[in-house]
Each structure stands twice: as structure tokens, then as C-alpha cells.
């Protein structure tokens, strides 16, 4: 069983890596890091700030786009184009397929983030000529970004298991945007009354809590990230992904493929 999941995961990774779209996106993101340097030159004294802010935001946004494109492309496309027929007629369990895809996808994003992060650190080095103590927390911010990717991938898979590629992409992206404002949404729900409060509350708790994983600003100002927060976010990301993936498995178990 384990080797099948690993096979699916590795194949997903291989397919993603060879897909040229990935390279274009990474190149673009690296370009943006370079641009951050330029922008920093315009605003004196805050080059560091700009590089970190812009760089990390680029890593996040591009990563989400890549996760959506590739995640949905790989899964929905497989379902639509019948590549899946030859896989499912083999002794691979459907749940093994879903989990394998998820692992392959997150693996791809991990590697991808690694390269983009190098770009950001290089840009930072160029601009400040040395690393400050506060820069270490940038790693924490990157770790949180990876946690966000974990959740986005799981959502992409969840939607792909029952929806068309376009709709899956739209839903996943929408959840990313809303999730980035999750804390505000919960604040709003707490202050509201009646049905609005109930609806807002339900949505606010179901939506992925990306806003707590966004410490870009903090980190740009060299402030540390608390260990407690790291722990809680990790637990949350793992639980949320588990939730989405088990949903995907359940849906996929009974799905009739056209």
C-alpha cells in the first residue's frame, strides 16, 4: 500500500516538474525579487522592508497560483482526460490515489518555495550586504507560507474530486482570499446579531485561517515569531488538510468517472 502512494506521489511530482508552466512561474517570481530590489532603491532606508514584504508576498501569491494551476491541472485534467481510467483499473485504491497526489503536489510546492526563498534571501543580501538577527524570523514566515500551501493543495484536491477544473480553481482561490481575512471575519461574526452572526460564524470557522499564518509584516520589521504560534499553526494546518483530504477521499470513493 505504501509503495503505491509513494509511486503516485513521485509521478505527480515528476509530471509537475516537467511541466514548463512551473518554470515560467518560478522565473517570474525570481524576477519579482529582483524588482523588489529596484523598488527598494526608490524608497530609501526601507529597502530591507520592501524586499522582505514584496518578496514574501510574491512567494505566497505565486505559490498559491502554482498550487492551484498544477493541483487542479493534474487532478481534474486526469479525470477529464481519462488518464485515470488506466490507473483506477489497477490495484490502486482510490484513497491511495488521492493521498499520493496530495503528497506529490505538496512536495512540488516545497521544492518550488525553496527556490523562490533563495531568491528572496539573495535579494536581501544584496540590499543590506549582511543578515541581521531579525532575518531568522523570515524562515518562520516561509514555514507559515508552506503551511498555507499545504491547505491550498488539500482544497484544490477536494474541489477537483467533484468539480470542473475551472470551478475548482475559482473556489480554491476564493477560499484563499477569504481565508486571508478569516480573523476579521470572526471579529465581524462576534459583533453581529441573529442570522448574520450564525452564517458569518459558520463561514468564519470553516474558512482556512490564513490570516494567522501571515506574519510578513511582523517579520519585515525584524520581530520574532512566537513558538506557540508556530505550534498552533502547524497543528491547525495539519488538521485542516486532513479534513479536506478525507473529504476528497469520501467524494472520490463513489464518484462515477465519465
Amino acid at each position: 500500500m505504501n509503495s503505491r502512494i509513494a509511486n503516485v506521489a513521485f509521478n505527480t511530482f515528476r509530471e509537475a516538474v516537467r511541466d514548463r508552466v512551473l518554470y515560467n512561474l518560478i522565473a517570474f517570481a525570481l524576477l519579482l525579487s529582483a524588482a523588489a530590489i529596484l523598488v527598494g532603491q526608490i524608497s530609501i532606508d526601507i529597502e530591507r522592508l520592501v524586499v522582505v514584504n514584496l518578496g514574501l508576498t510574491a512567494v505566497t501569491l505565486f505559490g498559491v497560483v502554482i498550487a492551484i494551476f498544477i493541483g487542479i491541472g493534474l487532478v481534474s485534467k486526469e479525470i477529464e482526460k481519462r488518464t485515470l481510467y488506466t490507473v483506477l483499473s489497477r490495484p490502486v485504491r482510490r484513497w491511495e490515489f488521492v493521498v499520493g497526489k496530495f503528497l506529490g503536489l505538496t512536495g512540488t510546492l516545497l521544492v518550488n518555495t525553496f527556490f523562490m526563498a533563495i531568491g528572496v534571501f539573495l535579494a536581501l543580501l544584496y540590499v543590506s550586504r549582511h543578515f541581521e538577527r531579525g532575518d531568522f524570523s523570515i524562515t518562520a514566515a516561509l514555514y507559515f507560507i508552506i503551511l498555507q500551501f499545504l491547505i491550498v493543495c488539500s482544497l484544490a484536491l477536494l474541489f477537483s474530486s467533484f468539480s470542473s477544473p475551472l470551478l475548482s480553481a475559482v473556489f480554491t482561490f476564493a477560499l484563499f482570499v477569504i481565508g486571508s481575512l478569516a480573523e476579521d471575519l470572526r471579529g465581524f461574526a462576534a459583533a453581529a446579531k441573529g442570522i448574520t452572526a450564525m452564517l458569518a460564524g459558520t463561514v468564519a470557522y470553516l474558512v482556512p485561517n490564513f490570516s494567522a499564518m501571515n506574519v510578513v509584516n511582523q517579520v519585515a520589521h525584524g520581530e520574532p515569531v512566537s513558538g506557540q504560534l508556530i505550534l498552533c499553526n502547524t497543528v491547525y494546518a495539519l488538521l485542516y488538510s486532513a479534513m479536506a483530504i478525507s473529504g476528497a477521499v469520501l467524494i472520490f470513493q463513489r464518484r462515477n468517472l465519465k
Partner: protein
Amino acid sequence: MPAIETINLAKTYAVGFWRKKPRTALLPLNLQIEEGEIFGFLGPNGAGKTTTLKLLTGIVFPSSGTARILGNEVDDPGVKAQIGFLPEQPYFYDYLTAKELLEYYGQLSGVPAKDLSSRVNEMLSRVGLSDAARTQLRKFSKGMLQRVGLAQAILHDPKVVFLDEPMSGLDPIGRREVRELIQQLKQEGKTVFFSTHILSDAEALCDRVAVIHKGELRGVGAVAELTAQVHGKVEITFNASAAPAALRQLGADMHINGNIVSAVLPEENQEAALEVLKRERLRLTSLTPVRSSLEEYYVQNLQPAEKSMGVGA
């Protein structure tokens, strides 16, 4: 124990946004296919062939009834290791090479790692793709993709092989190679179940065929049995300069070549035709039964009763 068995296997799709319009893809189907048979599944497009194949390979779940392969239900994971499937117009992972694709599938099918590489090479040469082993699939032609599809279907030495339109996209040489491959599979003791709408292939290869139309089974049996049900024809040749009108009345198609007339007419009118010749004092040169083809069976079966059988071409 039959290799493939369906018991009232049926599938209805709920179509439409509110799922109000059910579409029956397959009416309850009862089939038994023995081990070592080459079984053809015939029918026009949309008849339910692909649906049946998907039901038999576990890609789609039946609305009612069961399917069993080698005695076990299709759901059983052990069963999947024993089957191979070539879908219609397959599409594969673009960025893998043929070798990588087969190795991936081999791993998924549980081919032991030490045998994998040699088995893959063997398959590639069997389907004639050894040269293209390291080419990425996105560069493959339709025919080449079809061959890869065949390779992945038999790679893990399954006992039952399902092929959906295996000849599509192939040139005549390719088609012959596939036919030979299917016959080899039978010699290896495998059961082959394939769907096609090319009747000549079915006639040449199959031990038995089934004809399906609009989700309903219209006939099952050996090709010879089925064609025997169709009213046959005979060909009579004789010397004459003109075609006797009386023969035409018997429903004969006539050809005149010099002073040799060839008349093809329904079998049951054979005696009457000979009478005509005797009356006209025409000399009979030959009398040959024309083997009725599967096509006629097909065509006849697929028109509902309004078309009259027998007299009339």
C-alpha cells in the same frame, strides 16, 4: 467458473442539474464469458459498450446488478491485479517517456522491482515501440499512443484483458499487428473482451460476439450461429445474353459480363430460380452459397421490426 460474468448489470445516470432526467446507459445485462475466449462486443456509438467496459473495470459503479471477474466482484482489489484495460482514445501523462509510463504502471500493478525493467522492454518491443522508449509521450502519434495503451494493458500479465476500440487510430499494418497480438493473448490462455464497431475484425477474431444497441443486448453467440440466423443468399451463374425478368421477380441482383450472368438472390428462392433457368433453357454454370456476413446480422438486428426480413435486398 466464467472469466467474466455479469448478473443483471445495469447503469442509469441522473442527468441534468436537478438530476431529474435519468438516462439509461445499460439495461440489465447478463453475460458469461469463459476463460480463453476472445469475446467481441459490438454496437453503434452510444450503444453502451464503453459503459459496460467501465463497469467491468471498476471505473463506474453499477446502479444495480453485479459484475464478477474470475469469480470475484469487481470491487475486490485482488481482481484488479488480474485485469488490464485499454480505454478508448487514451490520453497519458504528457511528460513521461514511454518507458517511464510503463514503469509507473508496472509499479502500481505490483510488478516486482527486479522484473520491471526487463518486462517493460519486452512489452515495448512486443508492440513495436522499442525505438521510442525514451521519447516523451506528448510527441507520440495517435497510433503510437494506441500501442502504448496496449502495452500498459498487458504489462502485468493479466488473465483478463479489456480493450475499448483497440484498432482505432491504426493503419492497416497496425491493425493486423493488433489482431495478431490478440490471437497471441488467446494462445497464452488469456481472456480478451473487446469492443469495436469494425465488424470484419470481430468476424475474424472472435469466438463469440454480443451485439448491443441503445443499452440493450440484442444477441449473443458464435459468429457462425448469428450469421446463420440471417437469411442467406446464393449466387447462380449461367450463360445468357440477357437477364431473365422472372429472376428479377425472385429478388435477384444481376450482373452481366459478356454472356455470363451472375445473379445473387435469397436462398429460399433457390429452387424457383433453377426452375426459371430450366424453363428458359439456360445452362447453369455454378451455384454458390454466399456467406452472409455479420454486417447483415448487425444491420438487421439494429432495425426494429418495421423492416421486413427475407425478400428484398
